[in-house]
């Protein structure tokens, strides 16, 4: 199982800047479960950066257990499946939640 720090720090590497044209947002991961922690993700002018903790006021907050975030970004479980099962919750503008899902080059698991 990937650990949350490794997964969150991998996000700039799987970020698809061409999908985020005109979409600048601060996103907070507010996590419980195996590795309770907070991470601030900043998407601005086509770049993506991550900081530990809550460093800025978020527009979108993703809540749930850290292991589900790992499953989402490693391609183990489709994001919509986690959201539908309410294992992950996305608090913030509906359209931001939808746009967020399209920003990542998530590996496909057979």
């Amino acid at each position, binding site marked *: 199982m990937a650990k949350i720090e490794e997964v969150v720090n991998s996000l700039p590497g799987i970020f698809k800047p061409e*999908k985020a*044209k*005109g*979409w600048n947002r601060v996103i907070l991961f507010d996590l419980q479960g195996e590795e309770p922690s907070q991470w601030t993700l900043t998407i601005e002018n086509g770049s993506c950066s991550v900081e530990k903790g809550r460093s800025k006021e978020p527009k979108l907050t993703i809540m749930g257990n850290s292991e589900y975030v790992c499953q989402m970004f490693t391609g183990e479980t489709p994001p919509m499946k986690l*959201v539908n099962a309410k294992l992950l919750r996305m608090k913030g*503008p*509906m*359209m931001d939640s939808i746009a967020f899902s399209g920003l990542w080059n998530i590996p496909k698991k057979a």
Partner: protein
Amino acid sequence: MNYSEFHDHKWAQNLGLAVGYWKRAEYEKLYRGERLSERDVFPGLRVMGAYWASVEHEMPLRLSTFLRGAGHGDWLAGPRLEGDPLVAGKASDYFERFLADMAELADRIGDGLPGLVADLRSSSVVMPEDWASSMARLQGDGEAALARGEFPRELLDGWLRICLRSVANYNRFLIAGACAAAAIVAREGAGALRAAVDATSSDFMWEVSRAFFATALPQAGFEDIGDLMELGLRGMYADQYFHSEPEREEGEATVRMSVLENCELAGVYAAVERWEGLEPRALGYAICRYCEVHGLATMMITLPPMVSPSYRLVRSLGLHGEECRFELRTVPADDMGRILDVQERVFGPAE
């Protein structure tokens, strides 16, 4: 039964199921719903209440949009279409027939429903100003009761009351729309109906999306994407039998057909066509074209930006007398432009 039980009264099946869950003390299923078969779901009280409140916002919008397109916005004067007394009289008469159906079905279910419908008939069905706070209170009480492992009868009755009132008010506007459409066809011809719809369908596409996603659903406590997905997956079973056919690939496109086996709108319009001596499906364009653009907007709003959607009505109860078939076709795309566009159209400029 004045209206089709299959098309227009699925609400009764669901409220009957709700009473059954309550009597068996299956409170989680009562509140959160349960899949009944491959083609049917009991949505649960929380989703059902929000669904009815959101479509209750849609129906007055359909009526006012259509009348604006027909050049008869003045018919909307007063709460009962008093602008045209003849249409108003028929709308009132045919709505009474719907309430009579509700009473008949409530009698069949029993278990307190007849009294609730009788109360409804002796009071106003108009959506109260404080509907959202009432729903929020019921949601809070519902969650608290479930946490205690109970669900008092008065709490169930509170939920049944808001569903019954919404069902009645939704159908009041639906029936008024059918009466207005029938009057326009009778007085001005079928071409006038089609022209009214064509003149307004693209406006309706975004107006109804604003009514749903920016107004009614957030007020009903359905704002986060998980809640909205749940409502999308289960809500329409409040009044429909629905299934999707397996997806198929066509080149790079993925095609999914959604099949709506019944339609409350088509059922009401068919009844009004019959009572008004019109040909079957003479009024269908006034419902089906608006449904098609409403569906397209919903896909544009809810599908992620990795795909680009197209959506069309292939067959319908209102136009062809066959179950409604809507085709969703998605192709891989960089469609962030769509997300930004619908953000602005529905929710206003992003901060």
